[in-house]
């Protein structure tokens, strides 16, 4: 069975609900969502206006779910959605949308546009109009277990390395541990220091934790491509792993979309509430800090600022914790303009960074982040999402900005003293 327009339309018909109907009837074409979208503000191309990205779905809604719309179609006043149209919209719905949600928080009539883009991707993917990059990523995640083809040996190798580097034993498949730590492939491959930081922090806080051999991958390319069937397969592994190991809390790592996929979409994908808690690592660190279990020493003295990953802050509700954590370790911390709730996206989220043909557009959109950084001129940039880090570093490299990017968890771990008696 292969993807087809008919399948895509059927999925969209399934996805359209009262909120989408209300939104599509409320839009007054005021263009303010464009002013909030970096793909429009940095290119000036009106086709990137967020609400326009939903045009095929809007027409389908009108023709299928409104009386006048159905009549109009019967008499040929409106044209049904075509496959060519969906193909044309692929660039708008994927390459030029990172699901950052800024349009949804500014729309004067309250349209949750990113909610609709996420649903539209269901139809697009079912109709076979998803970018190859994402298709590859979701195929590898389902077949191999990681969008970047990371298998357990690689995880084990990194565990061994971290054990040597940090001198801490990395637990694997420890039943009854309090925390189940997930890793994103990005961290396994590019930022092994994250696992080291976790090990150090957990030992410092005296918390039991474990990795899970069947479910080490946190990210969910199924959600990024916008296909709940595949996302369900992926997230189910984590749920099974967590429930098998009977952990109390699953920690979503320094990644934006992994958090959204597990924390907010997970229960809806598998159709029942979780029996365990899900927390982003930043939430866990804040909890430890509040419980007095996170005693850091020394302060970073250089000029720092923080990039809020969209899925963590605006889309996830975790905004103040990272500031409290930064206050613990940074003496010279400055907020970027529009930081926090209204922060601008790095340009690579929502699977966008996995789309090769979207590279040029992403670098164009990065100018918005550049202007934010230019306003603060930090010496180092701290964030809490591995994908943001790479997209930021590529952008900074492209614009010859010499600005190192570091993870919040690793930076905090550097300020945790080694317990006495260690070698």
């Amino acid at each position, binding site marked *: 069975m292969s993807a087809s327009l008919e399948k895509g339309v059927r999925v969209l018909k399934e996805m359209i609900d009262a*909120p989408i109907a209300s939104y599509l009837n409320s839009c007054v074409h005021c*263009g303010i969502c464009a002013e909030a979208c970096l793909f429009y503000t940095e290119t000036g191309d009106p086709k990137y206006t967020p609400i326009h990205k939903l045009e095929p779905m809007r027409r389908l809604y009108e023709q299928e779910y409104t009386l006048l719309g159905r009549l109009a179609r019967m008499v040929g006043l409106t044209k049904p959605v075509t496959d060519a149209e969906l193909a044309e919209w692929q660039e708008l719905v994927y390459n030029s949308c990172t699901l950052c949600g800024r349009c949804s928080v*500014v729309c004067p*009539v309250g349209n949750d546009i990113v909610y609709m883009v996420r649903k539209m991707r269901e139809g697009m993917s079912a109709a076979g109009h998803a970018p190859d990059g994402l298709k590859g990523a979701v195929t590898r995640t389902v077949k191999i277990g990681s969008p970047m083809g990371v298998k357990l040996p690689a995880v084990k190798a990194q565990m061994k390395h971290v054990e040597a580097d940090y001198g801490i034993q990395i637990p694997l498949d420890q039943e009854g541990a309090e925390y189940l730590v997930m890793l994103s492939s990005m961290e396994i491959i590019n930022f092994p220091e994250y696992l080291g930081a976790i090990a150090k922090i957990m030992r410092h806080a005296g918390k039991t934790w474990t990795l899970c051999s069947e479910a080490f991958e946190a990210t969910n390319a199924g959600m990024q491509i916008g296909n709940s069937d595949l996302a369900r397969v992926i997230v189910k592994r984590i749920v099974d792993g967590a429930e098998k190991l009977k952990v109390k809390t699953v920690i979503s790592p320094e990644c934006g979309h992994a958090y959204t996929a597990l924390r907010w979409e997970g229960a809806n994908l598998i159709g029942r*509430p979780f029996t365990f808690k899900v927390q982003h690592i930043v939430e866990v660190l804040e909890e430890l800090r509040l419980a007095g279990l996170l005693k850091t020493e020394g302060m970073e003295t250089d000029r720092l600022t923080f990039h809020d990953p969209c899925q963590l802050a605006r889309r996830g*509700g975790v905004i103040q914790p990272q500031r409290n954590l930064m206050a613990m370790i940074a003496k010279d911390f400055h907020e970027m303009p529009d930081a926090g709730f209204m922060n601008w996206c790095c340009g690579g989220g929502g699977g966008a960074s996995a789309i090769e043909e979207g590279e040029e557009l992403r670098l164009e959109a990065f100018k918005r982040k550049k202007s934010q950084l230019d306003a603060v001129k930090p010496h180092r940039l701290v964030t809490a999402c591995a994908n943001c880090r790479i997209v930021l570093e590529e952008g900074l490299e492209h614009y010859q900005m010499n600005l190192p990017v570091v993870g919040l968890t690793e930076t905090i771990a550097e300020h945790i003293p080694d317990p006495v008696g260690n070698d």
Partner: protein
Amino acid sequence: MDQLQFLTWVRGTGLNLTLAIFVLGVIWRLIEIYGLGRKQDLSAPRDVAGASGWHTIYRRSIPPPGMLKLSPVSYIGGYVFHVGLAVVVFLFAPHIALVASLLGPTWPGLPSQVVDFVSVVTMAAMVAVLADRITKPAKRFLSTFGDWFTWTLTFLPLLSGWLAVHHLLLPYTLMLALHILSVELLLIFLPFTKLFHAFTTFGSRWFNGAVNGHKGVPV
């Protein structure tokens, strides 16, 4: 049909027809839209004070940080003409008398001269917003026939009403009749065009607020 007959028709049968279509249209469309329902969110909510659908309904009237300077005409022009419309429609003596006669309650209005000034400001704001729609690339790109049509539908009652009150341009009988007719056209088309955002905005803001409020994000 002469002017007085035309006026009598719009004040009588025409008004009756309009209110019927309006009431029927609004109820039909509201059920048609919100009848689609939505799935319950099974994920564990994050309770944060001030993060709920109800909060968003009023809070979304305030421009989010940094947005006002990006689209000042939309915000300021939009505010002025919406508030202006509300004042002209609900605080002008003849309108209050009309609504009171139809629905019962009455309330004090503003002096006619004030309402007259407000209506001129409202019309100016609408022209500004129209100019913005023509010049701003994103807005122009989005604009369909519906936008220009609904702008006209909203502007004509204001203009004809102002001209009627001042007995300008056309004999009062005709101008008053045209004013009433323009309001009737506005009401008839309201449930079937983007003007229906007058009703669905609250539902949309509530959904937006609820979905994000579930995640503890006060939008």
